[in-house]
């Protein structure tokens, strides 16, 4: 219905993603403002048991089809387009994740609904729907007024508290007839699990993490020395791994691993949202960057505006001489 708020749930291997609960929390806020229902949209195959975790929703729209057993963009987009066409919600929240990147844009074009990407927040009031997008690598926030009766917001992880999206109870389930899911142009072949690397960065209590700001692969040993002195390991942001300077198993962030070490030293990492998503839970974050405006300083506890050569070798020496 026109004032409902739909949340497109994301799940992998039978487990709902944390961002799904965050979106339920945000969706509840929007549904309160619109006076509509909070509808959780659950596409998949054999996922009815997940409904028990969705007490925060007023109703669950289950789109069940064997073609949805494994995630593929085309099948999920077709299924979701059918569900959202039937639901006609005021707003549909989609995760800003790998799957969400596929879904949000395709749904926007197919349904003709505006899309706001990288949303930190969304509001509904007398002026209509507005969304706050985090753009330019997290350096700026754009607050936009959205036109039309329906819209899609791709929500960044961390936009709301997941705990507020968890509630006891099992909501009513509405089934949406599976759409035409034959002759699909994208087919699932297999799931590949991350290879165990030389180091499991999710288990390290100290990580020295390097980003584009280290400038050259030749500077990696300098930081490895600091990591060793601290009894920890070296990790990295995506550009370093894309350059082939460190293996994929060391990558922290959205398309890498989430880490929660006791100490996270971010060296030359600007702090793109995709990176922060993977390390914001660290107990102590120390950031060193030449750009005082780098978003990494928004999540760091201590910051140093400096070149990596000035301070870090001195710190390494101090730690080593103590040991």
């Amino acid at each position, binding site marked *: 219905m026109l004032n409902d708020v739909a949340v497109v749930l994301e799940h992998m291997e039978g487990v709902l993603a944390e961002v799904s609960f965050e979106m339920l929390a945000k969706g509840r806020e929007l549904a309160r403002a619109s006076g509509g229902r909070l509808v959780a949209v659950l596409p998949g195959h054999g996922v009815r048991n997940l409904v028990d975790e969705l007490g925060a929703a007023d109703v669950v729209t289950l789109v069940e089809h064997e073609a949805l057993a494994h995630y*593929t963009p085309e099948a999920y987009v077709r299924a979701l387009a059918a569900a959202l066409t039937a639901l006609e919600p005021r707003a549909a929240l989609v995760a800003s994740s*790998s799957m969400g*990147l*596929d879904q949000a*844009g*395709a749904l*926007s*074009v*197919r349904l003709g*609904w*505006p*899309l*706001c*990407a*990288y949303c930190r927040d969304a509001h509904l009031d007398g002026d209509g729907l507005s969304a706050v997008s985090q753009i*330019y690598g997290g*350096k*700026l*926030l*754009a*607050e*936009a*007024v*959205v036109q039309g009766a329906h819209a899609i917001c*791709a929500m960044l992880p961390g936009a709301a508290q997941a705990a507020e999206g968890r509630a006891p109870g099992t909501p009513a389930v509405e089934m949406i007839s599976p759409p035409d899911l034959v002759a699909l*142009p*994208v087919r*699932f*072949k297999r799931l*590949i*699990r991350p290879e165990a690397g030389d180091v499991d960065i999710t288990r390290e209590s*100290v990580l020295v993490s390097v980003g584009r700001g280290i400038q050259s692969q030749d500077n990696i040993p300098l930081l490895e020395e600091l990591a060793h002195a*601290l*009894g920890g390991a070296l990790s990295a942001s995506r550009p370093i*791994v*894309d*350059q*082939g300077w460190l293996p*994929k*198993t060391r990558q922290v962030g959205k*398309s890498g*691993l989430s880490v929660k070490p*006791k*100490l996270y030293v971010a060296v030359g990492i600007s702090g793109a949202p995709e990176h922060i998503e993977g390390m914001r839970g660290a107990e102590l974050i120390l*950031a060193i960057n030449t750009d005082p*405006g780098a*978003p990494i*300083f*928004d999540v*760091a*506890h*201590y*910051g*140093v*505006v400096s070149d990596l050569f*000035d*301070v*870090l070798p001195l710190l390494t020496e101090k*730690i080593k001489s*103590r040991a």
Partner: protein
Amino acid sequence: MDIVVPVKMVPDLVEELEVNAEGTDLDRSVMKLRINEFDEHAVEEALGLKGRHGARVTVLAVDTGDVDETLFTCLAKGADRAVKITGDFQNGVSSHTMAAVLAKVIAGMPHDLILAGVQAADDRDGQVGVLLGATMGLPHVSVVTGVEPAGDKAVSVRQEYAGGLVAELEVDLPAVLGIQAARQAPRYAPVSKVRQIMKTAKLEAIAAPAVDAGAGSTVRRLAKPEVAGRAEFIEGSPEEVAERLYAILTERGLVK
């Protein structure tokens, strides 16, 4: 195989970004532009496929300013054709509009595979690749890290998810892929080679077709996040800073 790579220019995030007087957009008069880094990976993946399997690579750019050197650089790296789509785009262009323009232009050229960067720092209304795929009615996969032919009419791709999980998918051609990272780091074109290409090669220009597509939303406020500066900044000489950091780590029992 004909591979088309649409690239776009984005503000260089290393530079300070200035917001215009109205507080609704970047001050584009002072902005330094560079190719979207994910588009560099898309170009590299295309050239890698060309090297391994043979392909004709066409690079396209909507002329939002400063695109010539980027396009010449792509030619210097090994692209076969570089096309500039001209029009009134100096004040920026929404992703939906760009996708609609690209869809019409690409429809008029051979295209088996379209490789776009998975995202860009400025795509507030969505990522161009996925919008392009949907506009053209072609299958699309985002966050792709590996592309290999699977027979004549399909490719095998790897899509990355959180936690390092990866799915192998088979995609019928023609298709649009949002490239996260090329198999190899993007190749480098020496300045001398780019200069030489600028003298000998010519960019093709196509006037942008009229389209009816936009973001469907209007920015009313563009500003720096207010939460900034949670970090306590440590200042002083390098020796003083190192001393203070050492003290912080020792207090917390992180140096044993």
